[in-house]
């Protein structure tokens, strides 16, 4: 099984093909709906004037995202009141909601991948080819198990977004994922959808 440590090089990303299982280690960040909208509105599309806090967070996350990974995840975290954070349950959330933003976020921050579930669509696949980056699929619902690969919660940004929507900076070891969209334009999701479409068409004739 292939092992990769963050930050990841473009060459290592180009080497990855759909179907490969990878164990990821290093520092990454969670980010989902509110985070992608915030990145887009304040920094990429520049529709909203960033606050001082926004700018400070931006400076803090930029080096983590350069060559790094965003994990689509809204964890269950203990110690929120004391600051002694620990991930108790941390499976992936459905990625397709980030489809409007993901490719732009990848290019803007030089992300090498995202981890999520359910796969993403054409715009993100093009983003994977251009950046380059890949889509890593984790097992949806396997939250207690995945939380065990989180060694340490280093810090959190934008906790005012709420626990599930905040940016949690985590150090992971051997986080198991499968490449389902690669930087060469291949997507396991397109393959499965195409095959199931054929079966559906036949069933609809009955």
């Amino acid at each position: 099984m292939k092992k990769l440590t963050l930050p990841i090089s473009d060459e290592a990303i180009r080497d990855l093909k759909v179907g490969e299982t990878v164990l990821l280690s290093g520092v990454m960040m969670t980010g989902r709906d509110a985070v992608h909208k915030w990145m887009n509105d304040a920094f990429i599309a520049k529709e909203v004037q960033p606050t001082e806090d926004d700018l400070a967070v931006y400076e803090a996350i930029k080096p983590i995202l350069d060559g790094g990974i965003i994990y689509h995840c809204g964890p269950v975290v203990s110690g929120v009141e004391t600051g002694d954070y620990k991930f108790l349950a941390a499976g992936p959330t459905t990625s397709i909601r980030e489809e409007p933003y993901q490719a732009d976020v990848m290019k803007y921050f030089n992300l090498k991948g995202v981890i999520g579930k359910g796969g993403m669509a054409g715009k993100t696949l093009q983003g994977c080819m251009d950046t380059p980056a890949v889509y890593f699929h984790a097992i949806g619902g396997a939250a207690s198990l995945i939380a065990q690969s989180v060694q340490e919660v280093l810090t959190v940004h934008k906790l005012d977004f709420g626990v599930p929507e905040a940016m949690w900076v985590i150090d992971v070891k051997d986080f198991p994922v499968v490449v389902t969209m690669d930087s060469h334009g291949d997507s396991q999701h397109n393959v499965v959808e195409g095959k199931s479409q054929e079966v559906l068409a036949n069933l609809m004739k009955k």
Partner: protein
Amino acid sequence: MQDLTQEILELIRRTSTDLPADVEAKLRTSYADEEPGSAAQGALDTILKNVDLARKNSTPICQDTGTLLFYVHYPEGLSTRKLKKQIQDAVVEATKLNYLRPNSVNTITGKNTGDNSGDDYYPTIHFEEVDENLPLTIELMLKGGGCENVGAQYKLPNTEMGAGRDLAGVRKVVLDAVHQAQGKGCAPGVLGIAIGGDRGGSYLASKETLLGKIGEENPNPELNAMEDQLTEEINQMGIGPMGFGGKTTVLDTKIKGLHRLPASYFVSVSYMCWAYRRRKMTVNGTEISYD
């Protein structure tokens, strides 16, 4: 009236951390049915390991502890107003203990309440009165947002799919719903389907069907046959666990018919993810049991 807050807290803990035996058994059968070494079997292996671990450590099976749906059958004379307060208090307490994720977001302000307190609609509680000599029962279902998002409602007829106002038409739109969902609702799922009713009632009933056990026979033979047929045909589509491809796309299908207006013919499909979390507590005087 006795204070059941702690007992309801225990119901929440069990529901979030301990997958029901019928669901786990079905997942194990599915694991055995998938090709050895396939991504589908790998996904089910991870799922089953996670189920064991969550139970052992008493941590949430899935981080999305979902919409809380309480179904309460209360004996005549019991105060539902007081019981509702106890349920809401137990939900806040369960959140502090990390059995639940703070999941309640004010849609207008965008703020998360942080403790799963909410409004009159949160959590969802259905009350139904029973005879005064019967026990109080509280059933809880946790339904994650990913699977809730792939639910669908159709009105028949549907010209595009050639789906008329009959069970053959219902079959077609259900097949379409599952195809649209692909792996996004955390397949393998369980389908709760209601036919008829108004839009709201139809969706409610589709979720109520999910309170039944996996493999439970439908009392209506025609619907029972249709449930089996749909499960088999859907699994031919090859979407598989997590949408990786494979033989197991759904674990079971449950259908209920409702009376409707002559003008309306709704089909509501509620998709429950593999993390099909539901538990029941029964209160018989001071004796409380869970199953």
